[in-house]
């Protein structure tokens, strides 16, 4: 057996040489001064491979068209086993990748590892940084929620403002006639076909160059060498494992923002880019009018140019630590500017209401009068189903409510709820709730029951909040209700979530002259109520 395995291994090695190649990699000579600062390259590679793997997995359940993209992302999050995990790994992996690439560059910069003969390695690294940012930019649109849509509107306008090249760039990203299906397809193609291919090739080239010139020695290097395996490999694996733990923890415990489906008419929406572009977002605010192009184009271009000419401008052939103090100070300065801009943007931009996601079937559900939906909720929570079937099921003590003929006047029903026969406990519900329950019982129909059965608990609780708060006495829903306030159908197309939340808290501030009282809802009640209100179709 052992001999057979040995022969198979030998055969494989003779045909592929992979074993030798691996040994070359593992037992490569690296400077003995290498240590923990040199682990960032491996982290970047690990994160890139994780992005490729999770990206491919997401594509297994993702529909790349604006109509279906959002629904399929919701499907991945809500229905696919481990879908939330894979989506989270991809989302947080992208952020960690940006961090890792910057740390890698900062280390190379401080150690002067970009200097002759490693200029090309540095330039490939700069290109990889830009590709990483391009991944973030193009991937941002793909969930097709409001955040994605409006974020990309801003990106497209920045591209359009580039002197001379603006129209060409806008044409290239398919945004000449606004953000739409063409932009979406192009971003998808860039994100999943072009960028991964180019990045993969460039990473291979980057690693080839690292091997060709050898790993750069640390400033304190004394010329000694060591093998990559196992000492440096050990450090790399420990570092990668730490990132792996952080990444999985983020995917498991942090919520990936997915807002309402993209709505080009939602003019109240304040777009806000991903955190790593927030500094640019803030930079734009410093330049107004014609000067805006300085923030959008000139400064970012100068920053990239500075990175490109760096290895040619700084030719002093020293890597001594004392000589690198300036480099370290420069990194700290750039980081401080970046952090300052990011923090200012973070404080000054309203955070979107990101927990709200209207269920896919909600427009269909909203056709049922709110009292009946609320009543169905009370039917469930009061455990009426222990004695009554709604439609079908094994016979129970009480009559089936779906049968024609089980119809009683409202007064009889309310009396029955207060003292159900023969042995059930009375329902301790307020009169509006009992009214809703009686309306539901009076209107049990097969078509409504099949819809009610599918409603989420949060949706039903939102409708109950709507009913018990008495909203219907002033607002019309589906044509029924009071006419004092505006009808609520299509609210989601007219107002943003934050506006509605602020309006609950202080109606007179946003609608001077309004007679609506203040409604200090709890966060969960507010979420539920908004889910219902924003599901009401036009």
């Amino acid at each position, binding site marked *: 057996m052992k001999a057979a395995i040995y022969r198979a291994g030998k055969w494989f090695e003779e045909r592929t040489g992979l074993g030798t190649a691996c040994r070359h990699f593992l037992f490569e000579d690296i400077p003995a001064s290498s240590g923990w600062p040199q682990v960032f390259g491996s982290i970047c590679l690990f994160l890139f491979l994780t992005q490729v793997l999770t990206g491919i997995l997401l594509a297994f359940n993702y529909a790349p068209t604006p109509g279906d993209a959002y629904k399929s992302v919701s499907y991945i999050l809500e229905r696919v086993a481990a879908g939330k995990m894979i989506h989270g790994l991809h989302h947080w992996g992208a952020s960690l990748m940006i961090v890792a690439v910057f740390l890698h560059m900062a280390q190379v910069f401080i150690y002067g590892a970009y200097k002759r003969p490693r200029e090309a390695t540095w330039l490939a690294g700069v290109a990889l940084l830009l590709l990483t940012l391009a991944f973030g930019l193009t991937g941002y649109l793909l969930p097709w929620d409001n955040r994605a849509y409006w974020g990309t509107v801003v990106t497209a306008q920045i591209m359009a403002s580039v002197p001379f090249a603006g129209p060409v760039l806008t044409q290239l990203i398919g945004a000449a006639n606004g953000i739409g299906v063409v932009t979406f397809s192009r971003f998808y193609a860039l994100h999943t076909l072009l960028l991964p291919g180019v990045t993969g090739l460039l990473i291979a080239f980057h690693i080839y160059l690292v091997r060709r010139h050898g790993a750069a020695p640390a400033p304190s290097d004394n010329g000694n060498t060591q093998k990559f395996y*196992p000492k440096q490999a050990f450090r790399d694996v420990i570092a990668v494992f730490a990132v792996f733990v952080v990444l999985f923890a983020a995917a498991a415990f942090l919520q990936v923002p997915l807002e309402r489906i993209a709505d080009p008419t939602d003019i109240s929406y304040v777009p806000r880019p991903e955190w790593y572009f927030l500094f640019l977002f803030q930079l734009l605010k410093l330049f107004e009018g014609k000067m805006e192009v300085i923030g959008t184009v000139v400064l970012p271009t100068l920053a990239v140019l500075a990175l490109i000419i760096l290895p040619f401008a700084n030719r002093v052939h020293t890597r001594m630590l004392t000589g690198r103090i300036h480099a370290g100070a420069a990194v700290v300065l750039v980081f401080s500017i970046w952090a300052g801009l990011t923090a200012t943007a973070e404080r000054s931009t309203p955070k979107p209401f990101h927990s709200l996601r209207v269920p896919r079937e909600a427009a269909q559900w909203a056709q049922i009068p709110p009292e009946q939906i609320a009543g169905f909720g009370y039917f469930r929570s009061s455990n009426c189903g222990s004695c009554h079937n709604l439609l079908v099921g094994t016979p129970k003590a009480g009559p089936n409510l779906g049968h024609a003929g089980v119809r009683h006047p409202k007064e009889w029903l309310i009396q029955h709820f207060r003292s159900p026969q023969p042995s059930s406990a009375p329902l301790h519900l307020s009169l509006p709730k009992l009214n809703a329950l009686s309306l539901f019982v009076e209107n049990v129909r097969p078509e409504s029951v099949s819809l009610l059965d599918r409603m989420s608990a949060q949706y039903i609780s939102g409708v109950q909040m709507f009913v018990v708060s008495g909203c219907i006495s002033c607002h019309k829903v589906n044509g029924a209700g009071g006419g004092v306030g505006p009808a609520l159908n299509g609210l989601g197309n007219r107002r943003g979530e934050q506006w509605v939340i602020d309006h609950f808290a202080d109606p007179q501030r946003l609608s001077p002259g309004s007679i609506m009282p203040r409604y200090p809802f709890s966060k969960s009640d507010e979420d539920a109520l908004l889910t219902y209100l924003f599901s009401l179709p036009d």
Partner: protein
Amino acid sequence: MKEITIKDTPGIKRRGFMTGVIYTLASLMGGVFATSVSTYLLGNPGTEDSGWADAGDISDLQPGAPQQVSFSRSREDGWRLQNEKASAWIVIDDRTHVTAFSPRCTHLGCAYHWQANRNEFVCPCHGSVFSKNGDVVSGPANRPLDRYAVKVNGDRLWLGPIEAANHSQNS
């Protein structure tokens, strides 16, 4: 004795420790990834759809010969909720015993039809023949017609998920 001396050498010991950590952590990460990936690919998303649809008023149907009814049902297809037309062959013995057959032949899925003069279901594709209670009279089909779950509520006929026939029920 010599072997113990080698193991005790600090450099060798540290090398063994590092190699052990490398392989352990790499296997751990590989295992977690493999578990996540296989759960994602092999897990069943299930359906929130109860699968029941109103197939019409049962008093419109006559006992005796099978009749085909069309109805619309909503079906979850991944992230989409499809409203689609469906049909069933209904056989009513009396109001309490209703059978609804899926309209597809159990051989290769062609639509079959009822031949009143032969008193049998006949599939035009490959000639499978089924009796009125869904049993195979002659092949190539090798199992009885599939049935919808059936519930009668008042006058309404409700059809549920399609299930393979339990042969003993037919006999």
